[in-house]
């Protein structure tokens, strides 16, 4: 009986240590990692002097060189874009660029960055001076942080699935000067650590066409043959060009997300070991 009591006391002691010391150590570690991650996103207005720095990315594909793009990223926005397209049939070279006065916000990066700062905000509210009273409290905090981190990661790993009319209606098509030719659609998105540019070449379907018209649903990347209705016209994708370029700091950020998610889970697991204690008495 005494032995049982002793081991019980030892366990309680261990749990108290976990709650009062270990949890804070992990939270500090988490904060450090997330700070690194958020630095990668070069937050505007967070004390950086002058305008956010610009980075140029040359987008290409390993196969053909029909499309080449130079995109300039300024924080979470595309400030410049130069796209060269070699038309497949006549080898004619098309060039189009962003208007000087406009920027295109990459929503995925903005969201990911905001989710990270939300996660950090959750952690700063529970610094060393805060004393956790129950294990459930830690679990709740970890769940909230993990939710933000998972969303941040998912924002980067899952680009929006858009329908072709949505791409056509998007503000991106209006960013170019001179205006994009009507038989071209452009989409820019982040996929994992890569900045991707897709150019769709379209041709109109004849009204008397025998082809079975079936509008394509939403997709990250539409394939040739996808059809849609735009205005009064029925259009079909004839060629798809996709070029991409790795953004190194996005890669870092994703690694940080994974590491911190694992850290959170490990802390949750440690707390759960004592689950028979924490739910009944506060420490």
């Amino acid at each position, binding site marked *: 009986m005494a032995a049982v009591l002793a081991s019980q006391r030892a366990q309680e002691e261990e749990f108290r240590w976990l709650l009062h010391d270990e949890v804070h150590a992990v939270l500090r570690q988490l904060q450090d990692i997330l700070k690194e991650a958020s630095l990668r996103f070069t937050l505007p207005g967070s004390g950086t002097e002058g305008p956010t720095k610009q980075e140029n990315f040359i987008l290409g594909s390993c196969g053909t060189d029909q499309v080449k793009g130079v995109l300039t990223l300024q924080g979470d926005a595309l400030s410049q874009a130069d796209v060269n397209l070699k038309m497949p049939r006549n080898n004619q070279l098309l060039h189009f660029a962003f208007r000087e006065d406009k920027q295109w*916000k990459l929503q995925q990066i903005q969201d990911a960055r905001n989710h990270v700062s939300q996660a950090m905000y959750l952690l700063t509210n529970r610094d060393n001076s805060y004393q956790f009273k129950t294990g459930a409290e830690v*679990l709740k905090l970890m769940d909230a942080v993990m939710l933000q981190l998972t969303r941040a990661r998912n924002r980067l790993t899952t680009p929006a699935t858009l329908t072709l009319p949505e791409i056509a209606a998007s503000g991106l098509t209006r960013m170019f000067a001179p205006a994009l030719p009507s038989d071209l659609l452009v989409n820019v998105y982040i996929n994992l650590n890569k900045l991707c540019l897709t150019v769709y070449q379209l041709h109109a379907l004849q009204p008397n066409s025998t082809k079975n018209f079936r509008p394509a649903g939403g997709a990250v990347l539409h394939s040739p043959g996808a059809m849609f209705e735009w205005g009064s016209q029925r259009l079909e994708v004839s060629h798809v060009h996709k070029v991409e370029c790795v953004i190194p700091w996005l890669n870092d950020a994703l690694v940080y997300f994974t590491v911190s998610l694992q850290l959170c889970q490990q802390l949750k697991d440690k707390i759960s070991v004592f*689950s*028979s204690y924490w739910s009944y008495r506060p420490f």
Partner: protein
Amino acid sequence: MRPSLQAVALWGKKAPPHSITAIMITDDQQMIVTGSQEGQLCLWNLSPELKISAKELLFGHSASVTCLARARDFSKQPYVVSAYYHCSFRMTGEGWLLCCGEYQDVLIIDAKTLAVVHTFTSSQSPDWVTCMCIVHSMRIQEDSLLVVSVAGELKVWDLSSSINSIQEKQDVYEKESKFLESLNCQTIRFCTYTERLLLVVFSKCWKNSYPALSCAFVMGYINERKEPFYKVLFSGEVSGRITLWHIPDVPVSKFDGSPREIPITTTWTLQDNFDKHHTTSQSIIDHFSGFKDGAGTAVVTSSEYVPSLDKLICGCDDGTIIITQALNAAKAGLLEGDSLLKDSSPHKVLKGHHQSVTSLLYPHGLSSKLDQSWMVSGDQDSCVIWWDIFTEEILHKFFLEAGPVTSLLMSPEKFRVRGDQIICCVCSDHSVGLLHLEGKRCLLRARKHLFPVRMIKWHPIENFLIVGCADDSVYIWEIETGTLERHETGERARIILNCCDDSQLLKPESVLPVASETHKHKSVEQRSSSSYQLGPIPCPGLQVESSCKAADAKSFPRPFNVLPVKTKWSHVGFHILLFDLENLVELLLPTPLSGGDSSNSSYGSEILRRAKSTVEKKTITLKKNKTACGPLSTEAQAKPVSESLAQGDNTNKFSEENDGIKRQKKVKSSKKMHPKLSIKVDASLTIDTAKLFLSCLLPWGVDKELDHLCIKHLNILKLQGPVSLGLVSDEDHISLMLPGWDLCNTEMKRDDSRVNLFSGKVLDLSNKYIATLSNQLVIPRGLENNCYSLQESNTIVYLLSRLFLVNKLVNMPLELACGTDSSFKMESVHNKAKSPASDILNISSFYGYLRNGKNGSHVPEADLSLFKLISCWRDQSVQVTEAIQAVLLAEVQQHMKTLRKTPINSQPVSMAKNGNCEMMQNLPKMEWAEEIELQCIRSTLPLQTPVSPVNHDSNSNSANFQDAEDMPDRCVLEESESP
């Protein structure tokens, strides 16, 4: 609303955790609303003396509630709008919600449909919006929306002048924007008095004149200058505590001139409610564990309801498993003075675990081919025991050597190892074990998962176990060899999980805090990400249509169900009793006729079912109910015996003859069908369920004599204390009253003799109802049966059906209700088949029948006025529970009045057990109810029925529904025939 489902919560001693994340006080300062991280909303009553008491808990959200907003104006009903993942603000006038959250700019959402109407977009640096407020300026007569973004940018949109462009879906850009030098804006408020100043509160620089408040988590301040209202500062904490400060109009200062600390006026938590009203919060097995060892009672850590046996299996923290008859346990927990019940209620205690029992599985509930006696339980120590619950012996003990078993699943029928289905154990250390019961062998121990297991899939052909984890990675295990075949993440993992959709999907809950609420959540996202097809779904009544395909045994509703609920992040659990009123009425209906003959009862319900199913395919729930009532109503046209008996008999005879002829015509056109399904429902169980339900609804102590009569004549028992009633919505959202809710009725004087009176309003309503009722000639009813117990059950059926009707009326969708009202006014909707009014009349006449026990051609005029009365209540935002209780009270009073006057007056009526006859009648006066048809499952006067009525009721029934177009013609025809 799911009209027929009524819930009663059996709370334990511990309150469910409620970590407040949002708080709001209503404008009338009578209610506080809080949202919790667990996803529930709590309504707290705030008395004029500023005392707080929790009243109701609303289960709907599956994620943390982040914000609450008041919704008013666009409807008389007091809506509360809560939002998850985003904030919402009411916009005056148009019925829009303005939402901001983890997305760019501000969404405009239709307050009623919750569809996104439009967005306010920024031209300059769009970003997430953290807080906003609506500013109404008297000077410029313009409403504006003020917004602060995450990055600290203040923006202004015009509201009132942009309403048109929003409706036309034009882009609305901000009027102004200004960069504030700070991040993490908490809130923004406009000074309505000066119309010049704007208060912006940031987390880092927060000027706070009330020193007592610095640790509060969410708070608010309400400043009403009108007299009865107070200036109140309130805060809700993560611990679930609400604190109120009453701010004096004139600041009180200390001698040195510094402001004095304002004392806390009142503070309260959910647990306070539970502690204070301990008697009312009876956990379902308290009384068993109570006399088991006298000292501390065992806490239920897992439970499982087996509908087919009406058994409730509870695993406790001391390692015992208690198996009881669920209905008995519920009765013992709720009802008074039945010590006999408590002592004698059969229960078994299984001892085998040494640690708290964390999960249970009843395999037969999932696959009817499996042995009925098997039960599997897992404990904290990762020991899994295979039981025979009939002999109470341990068939085998498995030691998994892993973490606590969080869930036990069964492989689908088509997935077998050596001819047997296998058990899958998910443990809290993220490992998964596969057990082969018959072989008494552990097949696989999969331990490589880094994150909690979210999903289990079976690949029958390749013999793979596919495990999906919380980090969206996928592990594929080969069962034979026990090796990890593949590990995938990201896009590939997603494809793997999606591609084997054909194999059966079982999703265990992520971690041990199983939020059973999530399984009620309908959103697609939730469905794919959280558990809820978790093996044994404890609540077929809720789940049957949506998910529980594996359990064919549960594919029809049951009148009584127990739903065990566990709350997130804690071990606190409680049970919800679910009564399906509609099903109860259906099952009971034939019983009084045949004297509890169960074969007959299933036959009767079969008729209903068949009639229903013929139409069900294409109709929605409400229509379904309509059809369900349709056939019942047909036997109606109940004739209050108020008319002189002789005359009644004459008309009766006449109409019966008419019907006979008509029926003959009809029979020709109808095909013959045989009921194939037979549902075995224990008749006594059903009637017991009904009694318990009535006990829970009756307001006890209002009239002592009435109580006594109820106990004596209805043979029901008094409540120990007020019960926590609940409502279930169509989307399976549940609201539950909390212990101590009865103290919230401030208008009611506290009277200890009164137990379970929902509100003072009930008595009023009940009196109104009686007044309407007595406008017609009320006569003794339900007394013509010769058997005492028959009369008792007849009355119960009658009462239940009344309640069902009221429930349905009050819950009717608004547009339908409007239709009803107008048709009440118009009084003639001749050719409009299936008008709601006729629907109601259908129901009404059925109940009329029940009340009077005889059929005749009389039109229940009084019922009509009752419907009007009840429909009226709905408009006056009388709560459903109030309406139900009022009607129940009134009906019981009426009924018992007759009992008081006359001793049981046995009036021999020859009853033909299978005397089914069908008849069609019209309603001479009520032209608008042209659709009413009559069909009688039983005739009380078989001698007058010219045709031997044996086997054509069910088919003619369905025929009636199929040729609804013929109705008008038929009506005309009948009208000419009517006396």
